[in-house]
């Protein structure tokens, strides 16, 4: 190797070392939705990765050791909270041995702490009621106003950890809010079509979307949260569908649709697979697209 080549490589290495890429905040999130919103706010000042995929049930992610490698050097660990990740998060955080992202660390971000919650039990709950989240319903990202809150939380956290880029985070937040507001204006006709329409949902994960769209969930495929449908429950649900005129069963792509198809065959109701998260379908690569797609599909289905 000539001296010139060696010097060029050395200079290149030094330049890389000094580039903003090296100084990026390393952000790991539990879901794709949080990752996308973090990416909108952080822009090229952060490096974002996520543990779960959008087509995967976030309750049942395997705590694979390869995730530990992502987390051990992370500056921020942002998660949905409310025990959504209780089955796997403790193993990953223990495995990562990273003080920054342990509870109490500067990068430990329980996003639910910034969200007004639905379904928070004010009296005791127990597991006879199924997989009830004792701290509240964790599927809050499906309400765009919560998407805005998540973005604001990320802006505050990134600014705290990386104050020299505060202006960039602020500008990115404003751009995201403007994009979301424009999208909200665009889907007003669909919201009007959905308002008050009776629907059946598979799991309680659609409660926030229902709260936003004002669709009326008249029944759930699951007899109790997290419990697979039983024949006797389905018999009752079929009567509910007939009585209320519900037009659609909405369900996530990770549930087997055979049972929903059976109910559809008995009632004429449509089965609508709605991705609950970014990446739930290949084309849904960002949060605003996800909401736009779900609201559009829902409006078409309830006609």
């Amino acid at each position, binding site marked *: 190797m000539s001296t010139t080549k060696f010097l060029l490589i050395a200079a290149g290495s030094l330049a890389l070392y000094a580039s903003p890429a090296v100084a990026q905040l390393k952000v790991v999130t539990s879901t794709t939705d949080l990752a996308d919103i973090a990416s909108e706010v952080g822009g090229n000042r952060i490096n974002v990765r996520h543990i779960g995929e959008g087509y995967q049930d976030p309750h049942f992610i395997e705590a694979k*050791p390869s995730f530990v490698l992502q987390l051990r050097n992370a500056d921020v660990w942002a998660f949905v909270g409310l025990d959504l990740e209780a089955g796997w998060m403790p193993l990953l955080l223990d495995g990562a041995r990273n003080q920054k992202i342990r509870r109490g660390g500067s990068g430990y971000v329980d996003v639910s702490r910034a969200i007004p919650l639905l379904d928070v039990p004010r009296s005791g709950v127990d597991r006879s009621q199924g997989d009830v989240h004792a701290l509240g319903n964790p599927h809050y990202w499906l309400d765009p106003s919560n998407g805005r809150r998540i973005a604001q939380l990320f802006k505050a956290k990134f600014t705290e950890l990386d104050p020299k880029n505060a202006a960039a985070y602020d500008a990115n937040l404003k751009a995201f809010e403007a994009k979301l507001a424009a999208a909200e204006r665009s889907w007003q006709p669909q919201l009007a079509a959905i308002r008050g329409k009776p629907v059946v949902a598979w799991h309680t994960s659609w409660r926030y979307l229902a709260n936003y769209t004002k669709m009326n969930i008249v029944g759930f495929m699951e007899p109790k949260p997290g419990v697979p449908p039983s024949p006797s429950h389905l018999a009752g649900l079929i009567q509910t569908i007939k009585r209320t005129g519900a037009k659609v069963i909405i369900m996530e792509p990770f549930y087997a649709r055979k049972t929903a198809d059976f109910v559809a065959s008995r009632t004429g109701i449509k089965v609508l697979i709605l991705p609950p998260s970014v990446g739930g379908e290949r084309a849904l690569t960002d949060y605003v697209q996800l909401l736009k797609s779900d609201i559009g599909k829902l409006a078409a289905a309830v006609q």
Partner: protein
Amino acid sequence: MRRYLLCAALLATPVAAIAQSPQRDSVARADSIARADSIAIVRELEGQQTRDTTDRTAAQAGPVNARLLPDISVVGDMIADFSPKGSTQEGGQRFGIREVEIALQAAVDPYFRGDVFIGLSDEEGAAIEQAYLTATELPGQFEARLGRFLMPVGKQITTHRHALHTIEFPYAIQSYFGPEGLKGTGVYLSRVIAPFGFYQEIIATAVDRFGEAPEGLISSELPNKTLKGLGYSARLRNYWDLSEAANIELSFSGITGVREQEIGFEVDGFTAANRRQSVIGTDFTYRWRPLQQGLYKSFILQAELMQQRNPSSLPRFVESLSGDEASLVPVGNFTGGYAFTRYQTSRRTFLGARFDFLDDPARNGANTRAASGYMEFFPSEFSKLVAGFERYMPGAGDKALNRVILQATFALGPHKPHPF
């Protein structure tokens, strides 16, 4: 076949209910709306959510554990043994509570986490199964534990018995370590590394002794009189993602220490000889679980191979006294292992099979084999029912034995997930 069974199950009740009888309609409607089902639970929660709390965030609602109580959980592990030639359980019972485990887990302070597991059983009474401090603030991404813990030697041994996919530990583990696996009291140090781009973890321990102190045996001195007599173990874990759905782990372990070995008769008041014993082994696990269908499909193939290594000759004083008489003291090396597989057939049902083989040191190295099949049913994440059949073939001319065992386990409270 599964499709027909599913259709039959789904059709049986709904079709009957749909028959237009008003009485049946009202019963069915009651099931969907009025009883404590998902919609009723949501309505109840909506009712509880008063107007002034609707806009409060979780942060504004205050701490969720104001009294700083530890996570408390209980796991029950019950066994029924319907083996045709009589119970094969240690106490001979047909129905028994094998163990109740009480776990207390919490952060101790900013530097340590504490985990305590108390085991209660009819056979052994109350025992400290595990109790350890974990240092969470060490530099260099080290993790250290101090106390009693499951020894990181092999794969299955790092899992609590109630959480196994089979009812009992493989025979090689039972024979070389103990029926409940292997615990140690001492220090544990581990570090995750990735010099080659994949996950590796190095774990080393130093414990008071290799295995539990045997009851009723007396040797000339305590095995841990010198530091050479302590138990020392090391493990190297290697893990690779093959795809987003499949991964493998190939790991290597070893443990050595001085153990009291029963000599079968009394010499100068002593009934045991202190002898070094080591076990080395390797374990392999392949897992497959497609992310989108992960609730319904998964597959595991796991195998461990291990060798117990003992001195190649009897202690001199035993040899001179016993002559040709066989001694209970193990001599030479014994090899054993198992292969296990499990396939998920539906959201709540799994089928599994295991093949065991070992040179049994308690039977002069007789080649013992066992083949077993299991069906696991999970009503929920917090309960499990297992039915198992095993053909146990002890070798050395002894008769084979059929075993039929049922197991039920349940978990109360927030039990921390088991290692991957």
